[in-house]
């Protein structure tokens, strides 16, 4: 699904504060994998996510999705494969638009945004059903502005928006960092459910070692722009928290 070859990114090149954010990364991710990415601050986790999303360009190397080199594509052109759940719940939704309007936009991720009123009864029903599955009671607030919801509610909806059009890759960059423990659990469990039911490939960046251990079927650990551990399904089951902390030093 995703094939990364010799991906390199250096910030502030040639300056005193030069940072090697990604150092010649080679990585292959299969379709349907739920990859959890951990690492200390500045280890390159978010840089990797931003380069896959297209918000940041690599200095060298390639990012291939389904055999197509997307390294040179503008961010908005990558949306047919990739959707993103940002760390800040405000980033993933338009606060002044209604919930329904936000979902309408998400459903057009890879389609054209033309002069058609797409928010018809059929679409409303589809969104109603999708949001009902959250069990948060938000399905009755479809016409309310997104900005009136809590961070956890917005993040849960962002996650659903990300998969409304059967997107192939879901990037989640510390999606629970701004949420309370209960909302965080709802979000991660929802991601797990989406991965299991739809087979969406998920890359989740987290600082929570507990989540890293509990969720996903592959664990990547980064340090100073380098991939230092790549633990796959069977090995991951055998992992324990002390082992993870030990690797972190």
């Amino acid at each position: 699904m995703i094939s990364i070859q010799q991906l390199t990114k250096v910030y502030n090149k040639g300056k005193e504060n030069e940072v090697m954010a990604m150092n010649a990364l080679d990585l292959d991710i299969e379709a349907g994998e739920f990859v959890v990415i951990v690492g200390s601050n500045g280890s390159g986790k978010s840089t990797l996510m931003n380069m896959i999303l297209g918000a940041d360009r690599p200095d060298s190397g390639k990012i291939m999705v389904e055999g197509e080199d997307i390294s040179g594509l503008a961010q908005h052109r990558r949306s047919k494969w990739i959707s993103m759940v940002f760390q800040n719940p405000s980033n993933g939704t338009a606060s002044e638009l209604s919930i329904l309007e936000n979902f309408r936009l998400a459903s057009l991720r890879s389609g054209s945004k033309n002069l058609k009123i797409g928010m018809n009864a059929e679409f409303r029903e589809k969104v109603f059903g999708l949001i009902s599955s959250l069990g948060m009671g938000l399905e009755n607030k479809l016409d309310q502005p997104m900005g009136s919801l809590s961070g956890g509610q917005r993040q849960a909806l962002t996650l659903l928006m990300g998969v409304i059009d059967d997107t192939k890759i879901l990037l989640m960059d510390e999606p629970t960092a701004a949420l309370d423990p209960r909302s965080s659990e709802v979000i991660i469990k929802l991601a797990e459910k989406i991965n299991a039911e739809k087979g969406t490939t998920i890359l989740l960046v987290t600082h929570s070692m507990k989540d890293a251990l509990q969720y996903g079927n592959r664990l990547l650990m980064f340090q100073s722009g380098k991939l230092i551990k790549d633990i796959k399904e069977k090995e991951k089951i055998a992992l324990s928290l002390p082992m993870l902390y030990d690797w972190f030093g």
Partner: protein
Amino acid sequence: MSSFLLSAFQLALCLAPMAMGIFITMKVFNIPDITTDGSYTLGATVTAVLLSQQMPIWMILPISMAVGAIAGTCTGWIHTKLKIDALLSGILVMTALYSVNLMIMGRSNIPLVDIKTIFNFLSLSGEETIDALIIAFLIVTILVFLIVYILRTDFGISMRATGNNPVMTRALGINNDRIKIIGLSISNALTAMSGFLVAQYQGFSDINMGIGIVITGLGSVLIADTLKNALGVRKMGQQILLLIVGCVVFQMVLAFALSIGIDPGLLKLITAVFVLAIVSIPEISKRIFKK
């Protein structure tokens, strides 16, 4: 209603398209666009020149809107592709348009005497002022329906989302630059439409008629915004209707100022003070309620 107020009402309707244009740039995209001053005059200039050459009115409207759209496209292109601040981009295009307008007119003023305009080519009620008012009202009504429809379409939602959260829209496959350029071109086409209407309403086009007109449009948008917040209006259609109310209130205030004998030379000052008063209402009311 006195003919003085009827006239002010008609002028308000003529300026309503510009207010809708400013609403699109300022409220939908969060872009302060000063191109307005130039594209308003451009619409009037093109209208006056083509009317003097006996071109049919139904052909002049799309032409004047198209040139306004081109002006907006220039501002959008400079802002998005050359990464120049939106305010400066607008100022640059507005400045350039002054010369363009002079070139088109060939002089600083074109009177439209004894020429059939959009306001007098049909006789509906037998009275010219009422006919003009009915025609202006019909045009604005059609425009309101059109703008509300566009803002409710998938394209309209994309425009509104781009102004609200560009990070999100980029991730959702929207080319923010392109949609901003389209938005600015629609906005300036509407502004040029106001130029088209006002040139015919006042019976001439003048090179200086656009100076400070953005403040008039802005004032109407701000009145509408204040009313929107006070009434808790959320629906797009109601917001656009409030824009028309904003235009009417604004023009009525100016008409009232003139009717009590204020020097017309002070109109721009009154306009600025009135807009300042509207802008400061939230802060002033906050302080009053605190006490």
